[in-house]
């Protein structure tokens, strides 16, 4: 309800403002351009960095100081903490970094945002900033027209900075013109009430604009034009810091429990820092005067002094809170737990990762592996094999004669508990991610979608097979038992080899290794058919059992085919763009059939032959 009326109310207020004052529209246009500039820069950094920002994050957050440094530097360079927050939440949701590392990044990012105040106060107000904006916009648009994504990204960054500068210039001019008609400073309030009221306004402005940066830019330009008192500007800066956490909390609503914990840590950090700043406003203001005098800032240069204040209280927050990061992690993990259900749920997917194709791909890849791992158990137990037997070294041919240890499992129930929810989430996530991602990623998302479909198809084939398998494994006829055990050994062998392939780093090598499994499987299927024919001829089994064996042999082939297809699709999702080696080197189906058929004639001397 609140969300529904929010936009119309803002639109009405803006419309009224435009109607009564031309200067107001100039300020509002400045804010709009500033926000658009930030969006442009964010888009630019996404394209320009490709996956390198994510890779950097992966490698530079193993120590707390590195996490802090990453947050600080990346936010300073990009002038927006929202992209850093989104990447951090998505990494955390995909369990690629720990909560402590995530908190370190958020703390660093908070410090990084303080550089924005320095840029606006130290540069934006001191020079004719719009003069810099124009060439940036022209060159930026020129680069936007290029084919390469990296160059386009650089174009967006230039356009973003151009609009950011233009926005500051509009705000500056708007407030200067405003001074002639209306003096907002007459509404200035002093004392505790003024402090609380302007902190509240800062929170509200940041929530509306979804950016503490924009609130600060607006505050600094109004302060420069004399429309705000220094004291109220300090309160607005504190409010902006608190308001920005609301954006983070809203962003974390669709995230996993790890993302929610990070948002809570962000809220605690900014809340505590804001509260301390309010309580210590006098000593902090005195410290600002002392520091400003020390670094040569004039006593009347309130805009730069505001930048000093903003940096100082955020730095104070970091220094005070860093020693408590581990305690914060413990408390958050203790009190913020996921809903415990009997069903297995997706672990790595979050709405935040959808925005970054590399992270989205990584998250859904991990989730598909999670699904495959669950399916692995279902398939193994469905054919009465323990996971330990498959993962171990035991010769699976030994299964043929040994009495099977039957495993009691309700596949339909297990499907509902272990598969359905993750499978549905994966398919929905892939559909959404495909729309947002560029064409370069489509094939990989499509491969992951195929992997998910094949996993479910493998479980369905297991269900069909299990019906007869479970009863015939208890048969008094040794030949029937052996033939059904042969199916189990085949499936066990494929599961074992497929799980061993998961260790391989090079996707092309994995795809080539699948040919070996295909040959083995084709040979095994043909041996199984011959065995059934022999049993029929010898009169050892009835025709009805024979048809069951033939049908179940087909289900086994189908199941094995699905398992191989899952591995192939998962591997293809990791294949470099434009990779052709796999198609050049894998064997054709007739070559596979030739090897499977002519296996007895393979000359050992030829096998040692080196390619010419």
């Amino acid at each position: 309800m609140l969300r529904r009326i929010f936009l119309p109310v803002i639109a009405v207020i803006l419309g009224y403002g435009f109607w009564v004052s031309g200067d107001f529209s100039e300020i509002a246009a400045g804010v709009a351009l500033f926000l658009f500039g930030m969006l442009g820069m964010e888009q630019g950094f996404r394209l320009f960095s490709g996956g390198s920002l994510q890779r950097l994050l992966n490698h530079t957050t193993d120590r707390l100081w590195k996490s802090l440094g990453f947050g600080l530097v990346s936010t300073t360079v990009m002038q927006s903490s929202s992209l850093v927050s989104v990447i951090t939440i998505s990494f955390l949701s995909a369990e690629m970094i720990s909560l402590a590392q995530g908190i370190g990044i958020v703390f660093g990012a908070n410090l990084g945002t303080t550089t924005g105040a320095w840029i606006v106060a130290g540069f934006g107000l001191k020079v004719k900033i719009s003069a810099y904006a124009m060439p940036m916009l022209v060159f930026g648009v020129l680069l936007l027209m290029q084919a390469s994504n990296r160059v386009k990204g650089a174009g967006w960054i230039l356009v973003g900075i151009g609009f950011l500068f233009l926005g500051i210039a509009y705000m500056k001019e708007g407030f200067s013109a405003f001074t002639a008609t209306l003096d907002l400073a007459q509404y200035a309030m002093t004392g505790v009430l003024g402090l609380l009221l302007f902190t509240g306004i800062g929170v509200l402005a940041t929530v509306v604009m979804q950016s503490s940066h924009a609130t600060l830019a607006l505050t600094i330009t109004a302060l420069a034009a004399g429309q705000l008192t220094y004291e109220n500007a300090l309160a607005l800066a504190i409010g902006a810091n608190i308001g920005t956490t609301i954006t983070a909390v809203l962003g974390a609503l669709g995230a996993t429990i790890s993302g929610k914990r990070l948002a809570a840590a962000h809220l605690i950090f900014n809340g505590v820092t804001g509260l301390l700043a309010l309580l210590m406003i006098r000593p902090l203001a005195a410290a600002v005067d002392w520091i400003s005098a020390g670094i040569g800032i004039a006593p009347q240069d309130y805009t730069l002094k505001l930048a000093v204040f903003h940096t100082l209280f955020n730095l104070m927050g970091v220094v005070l809170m860093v020693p408590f990061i581990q305690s914060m992690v413990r408390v958050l993990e203790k009190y913020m737990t996921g809903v415990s259900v009997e069903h297995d749920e997706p672990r790595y997917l979050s709405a935040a990762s959808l925005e970054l194709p590399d992270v989205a791909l990584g998250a859904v890849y991990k989730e598909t592996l999670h699904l495959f791992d669950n399916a692995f158990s279902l398939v193994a137990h469905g054919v009465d094999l323990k996971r330990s037997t498959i993962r171990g070294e035991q010769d699976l041919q030994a299964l043929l004669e040994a009495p099977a240890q039957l495993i009691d499992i309700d596949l339909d129930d297990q499907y509902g508990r272990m598969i359905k929810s993750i499978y549905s989430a994966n398919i929905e996530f892939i559909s959404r991610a495909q729309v947002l991602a560029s064409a370069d990623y489509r094939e990989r998302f499509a491969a992951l979608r195929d992997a998910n479909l094949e996993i479910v198809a493998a479980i369905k084939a297991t269900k069909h097979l299990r019906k007869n398998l479970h009863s015939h494994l208890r048969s008094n006829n040794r030949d029937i038992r052996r033939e059904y055990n042969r199916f189990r050994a085949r499936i066990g062998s494929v599961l074992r080899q497929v799980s061993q392939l998961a260790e391989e780093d090079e996707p092309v090598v994995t795809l080539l290794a699948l040919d070996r499994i295909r040959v083995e499987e084709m040979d095994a299927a043909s041996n199984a058919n011959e065995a059934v024919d022999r049993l029929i001829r010898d009169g050892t089994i009835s025709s009805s059992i024979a048809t069951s064996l033939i049908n179940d042999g087909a289900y086994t082939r189908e199941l094995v085919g699905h398992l191989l297809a899952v591995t192939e699709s998962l591997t293809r999702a990791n294949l470099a763009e434009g990779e052709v080696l796999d198609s050049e080197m894998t064997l054709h189906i007739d070559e596979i059939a030739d090897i499977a058929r002519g296996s007895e004639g393979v000359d050992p001397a030829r096998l040692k032959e080196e390619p010419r």
Partner: protein
Amino acid sequence: MKIKKHLDKLSRLLGQDDGIDRDQLKKLRKVLKALKSDQEKLQAKLAEAEGEHERRKLGQKLEVIRLQREKGVEVYRTLKASREN
């Protein structure tokens, strides 16, 4: 000459260089090396294998690798030749 070099660099930077992937040969060497290593492991297993079923399986796998390496070497030659031209 210097200007041409810089122009080439710029055109690569602007993504206009659609030449062959320079990493392809490196990748192929890596894949062939991995296949060779698998082949050696399987040969060692074959030398120790006793059962007929096991020997047949290992023989098939070795034949697959032999054919794939043959194809790989062919691709390597073609890539090398196209780079030299």
